[in-house]
């Protein structure tokens, strides 16, 4: 199978050679069908959206820490929504909503998975490009369109969507319930519908490419774990995103055409509405049927990147390669049957809650296996602490800290009193937000030379970026658990209406100060990123001494990736520090054996 695919692709490459010099600015930089360019487009769009999302979080964190205080920056940025520099309660909810939407979908789904799936799938499996370069291009431009619409929605008269990133109806369905549920919500829904189309096109392409276009010798059990993670992520995306589309469509119908899918028995602003027989709980099921797998759509690529970066920099094979694959598949499967743990107290039948508690706590098992395997990978390594490696270690740390509190939230009993409090906010920010961001950073530092023709990011700025971020991330989210356990609900514009929360203001101030510093540290990253694109020092072809195929390609970018034939693969990706019977490296003087090196006469192959 893969041999035939190989031959076909080769033919394509010759054909392609004739057109190579004809590339114009538009086909090279804008409507490019080359996966490497598309990956850069995803990354830069994602980083711009990320800047907006993080800036928003600073604004609302300031409001929580210093409630009702006047800040000139509020007036400057929010205009009429902050008369006299005091933030309005509606815009507070809008900021929270759009921050969540942007970070989850636009940064961590498209910016992370879109960037690295595009960059690494063809390069690491040994393919000239994605199965369909055209669909890949369409996928990016749909993502771009949805980003533009989402950003435009910030400027509508009545304000952007403000019902929380989960946009539960009836709040999101009724413009009289809050101003953000008018035009702002319409644009939100349109943007997300387009986003889903983009994500589906991308995912289908990733799946087909991984199945069909692997180079000769690249069996599934020789794939780097990055590819396994992207592959499985794409599958759960294809399974769950269409369900969100149906939820969005039904919500659009309820809003615009008077149907009653999610609405019933509503009396608002002195008037009974005609809706009858719908159920908001149905919406919650549909939303979380995507929403929970979404957590893993965000996290699995980050874990995949970590596996690869950690193994390379530890100069050791990833521990338990097969167990890692099994864990990815187990997590993916379980992730589609745990969504109800977001709904224990939604009015859903308590028995159903029991079932979801069971499946939810089961998912802790493959997650624990992954964490232990990462730790063992470090043991007795020769750790090269590059910035990418530090972010990978940081990911494992926050993944454990955040994951453990999942034991509390996944237990229907314990969820009762911490549901929708800051405890939840702390939990998911550590386990998926911060962890996935660390994965993104690890990937950027590690594969920057592959994206920008051999140029490398400045490591010292990278170290400063990592250490400030690492300290501040814990500084923000560790104390936040206590705020939640004190009973403070999330999405409160201010906590001053409850004297019992008075003494928590100090904690809020502490967290906000850490958050501001953390955001400042991201500017160091942005500077380093932009500066390195233009002034970065060129490194060697294989700067991290890595085994995978992407480092066998030349520095310069051209459609097709390899000048000659696609290299053949003879071994798995993790032969780091492998020794022969005499304790000597397989290749004398070199502690890694690239996948393209044939097995030595007396060498034993791992795992196949």
């Amino acid at each position, binding site marked *: 199978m893969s041999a035939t695919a190989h031959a076909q692709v080769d033919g394509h490459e010759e054909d392609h050679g004739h057109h190579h010099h004809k590339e114009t600015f538009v086909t090279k930089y804008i409507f490019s069908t080359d996966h490497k360019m598309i990956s850069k487009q995803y990354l830069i769009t994602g980083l711009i959206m990320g800047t907006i999302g993080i800036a928003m979080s600073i604004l609302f964190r300031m409001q929580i820490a210093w409630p009702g205080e006047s800040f000139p920056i509020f007036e400057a940025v929010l205009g009429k929504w902050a008369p006299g520099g005091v933030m309005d309660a509606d815009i507070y909810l809008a900021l929270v909503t759009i921050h969540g939407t942007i970070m989850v979908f636009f940064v961590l789904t498209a910016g992370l998975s879109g960037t690295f799936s595009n960059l690494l799938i063809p390069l690491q499996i040994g393919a000239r490009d994605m199965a369909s370069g055209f669909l890949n291009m369409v996928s990016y431009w749909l993502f771009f369109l949805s980003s533009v619409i989402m950003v435009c929605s910030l400027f509508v008269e009545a304000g952007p969507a403000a019902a929380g990133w989960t946009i539960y109806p009836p709040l999101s369905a009724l413009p009289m319930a809050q101003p953000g549920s008018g035009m702002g919500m319409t644009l939100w829904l349109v943007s997300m519908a387009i986003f889903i189309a983009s994500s589906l096109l991308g995912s289908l392409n990733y799946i087909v490419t991984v199945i069909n276009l692997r180079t000769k010798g690249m069996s599934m059990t020789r794939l780097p774990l990055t590819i396994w993670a992207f592959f499985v992520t794409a599958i759960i995306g294809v399974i769950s995103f269409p369900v969100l589309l149906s939820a969005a469509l039904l919500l659009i119908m309820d809003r615009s055409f008077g149907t009653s899918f999610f609405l019933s028995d509503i009396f608002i602003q002195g008037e009974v509405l005609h809706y009858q027989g719908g159920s908001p709980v149905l919406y919650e099921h549909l939303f979380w049927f995507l929403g929970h797998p979404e957590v893993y759509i965000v996290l699995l690529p980050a874990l995949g990147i970590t596996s690869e970066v950690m193994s390379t920099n530890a100069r050791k094979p*990833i521990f338990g390669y097969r167990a890692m694959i099994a864990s990815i598949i187990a997590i993916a499967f379980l992730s589609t049957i745990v969504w109800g743990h977001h709904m224990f107290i*939604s009015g859903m039948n308590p028995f159903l809650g029991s079932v979801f508690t069971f499946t939810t706590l089961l998912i802790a098992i493959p997650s624990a296996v992954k964490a232990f395997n990462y730790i063992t990978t470090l043991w007795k390594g020769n750790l090269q602490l590059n910035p990418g490696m530090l972010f990978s270690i940081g990911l494992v740390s926050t993944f454990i800290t955040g994951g453990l509190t999942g034991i509390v939230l996944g237990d229907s009993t314990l969820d009762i009193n911490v549901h929708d409090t800051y405890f939840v906010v702390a939990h998911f920010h550590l386990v998926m937000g911060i962890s996935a961001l660390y994965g993104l950073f690890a990937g950027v530092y590690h594969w920057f030379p592959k994206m920008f023709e051999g140029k490398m990011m400045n490591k010292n700025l990278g170290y400063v970026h990592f250490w400030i971020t690492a300290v501040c991330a814990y500084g923000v989210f560790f104390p936040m658990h206590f705020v939640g356990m004190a009973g403070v609900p999330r999405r409160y514009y201010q906590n001053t209406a409850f004297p019992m929360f008075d003494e928590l203001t100090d904690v809020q101030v502490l967290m906000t100060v850490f958050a501001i510093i953390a955001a400042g540290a991201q500017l160091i990253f942005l500077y380093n990123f932009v500066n390195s694109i233009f002034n970065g020092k060129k490194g060697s072809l294989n700067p991290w001494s890595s085994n995978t195929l992407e480092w066998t390609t030349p520095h310069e970018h051209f459609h097709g990736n390899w000048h000659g034939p696609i290299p053949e693969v003879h071994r798995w990706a993790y032969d780091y520090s492998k020794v022969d019977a005499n304790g000597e490296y397989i290749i004398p003087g070199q502690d890694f054996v690239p996948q393209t090196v044939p097995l030595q006469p007396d060498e034993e192959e791992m795992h196949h």
Partner: protein
Amino acid sequence: MTTLLTLVVLVLVAIAISQMTKMFELSQLTTENSQIANDQDNKINGYLLFAFLIFIYGITIFSFWKYTKVLLPTAASAHGAEYDYLMLVSFIIIFIVQTLTQALLHYFGYKYSGKKGNKALFYADNDKLEFIWTIIPVIVLAGLILWGLYTWTEIMDVNDEDDPIIVELYAQQFNWTARYAGDDNVLGGANVRMIDIDNANILGLDPSDSYAADDIIVKELHLPVGRKVNFKMRSQDVLHSAYMPHFRAQMNCVPGMITEFSFTPITTTAEMRLDPDVVDKVKRTNAIRAKKAALGEDNSDPWEFDYILLCNKICGKSHYNMQMKIIVETEEEYNKWIKEQKTFKPAIASVN
């Protein structure tokens, strides 16, 4: 004070950043100008990883030392003790695992930081180890699951045993209303389509339903201590959530359906005000409020502890201020209070 503190922190951070940059740069003076970590980088970052481990422990200890007092006081409901115990056990497990795994992760990062010429151990697999760390979580989680599910089934079993009082919690943007079932202890039928604000029928009770006649509609929730309460929740507009943190109780209010929760309050408001933790909390809070009063700020009246019902599902602009006072009192006090309240029928009649 806060401003000063913030400024100090910011200045310290700025110094830290410049020092760190300098430190990293100094470490490279002697070596080649490459963006790949060298032995010096590995050494420094190895030490920093170890320091980071201490930081994680530090912030944990700091948070517990400083913030344990802000946590909710002893549960005031019958099922609350069981809830708190399960929470405690879960947290003990969490902290054991957290302490061990973070230690291994960061210690390995420090201990095995790379040096030219060092050889990593080619160690790809060990079925025994992997079996061990699969089976241990399985056993621990199985225990937690079983215990959690047993408690959950008990808490969520809303039934009519032990003569519960039936109370409706009614949510709307942005306030709560409670309805007592009256002498017959049966709530009258109701629907938003029967709401008639002009005639004081704010909850949409069915005037023709005889069960509704003796219902009592109030804006403050009174509960007799030691008697089970079955709550029936309704919402008239958007999703709300009835969150009563002191009773470890929460349930969403969903337009178009009636949701339920049940608990037995075991501590009266008066008794809770004497609880040492609560006394301390009130003292601390009133000290803060006195400071605010001295500066002429809002929200500075002295506070007296009360149980509270909060809205805990985003519901719109004033979500942050949707609350109702809960008073748990003795049977006699409760009976006296309920007798003073107007029932639904006379209330309507008086408007007409």
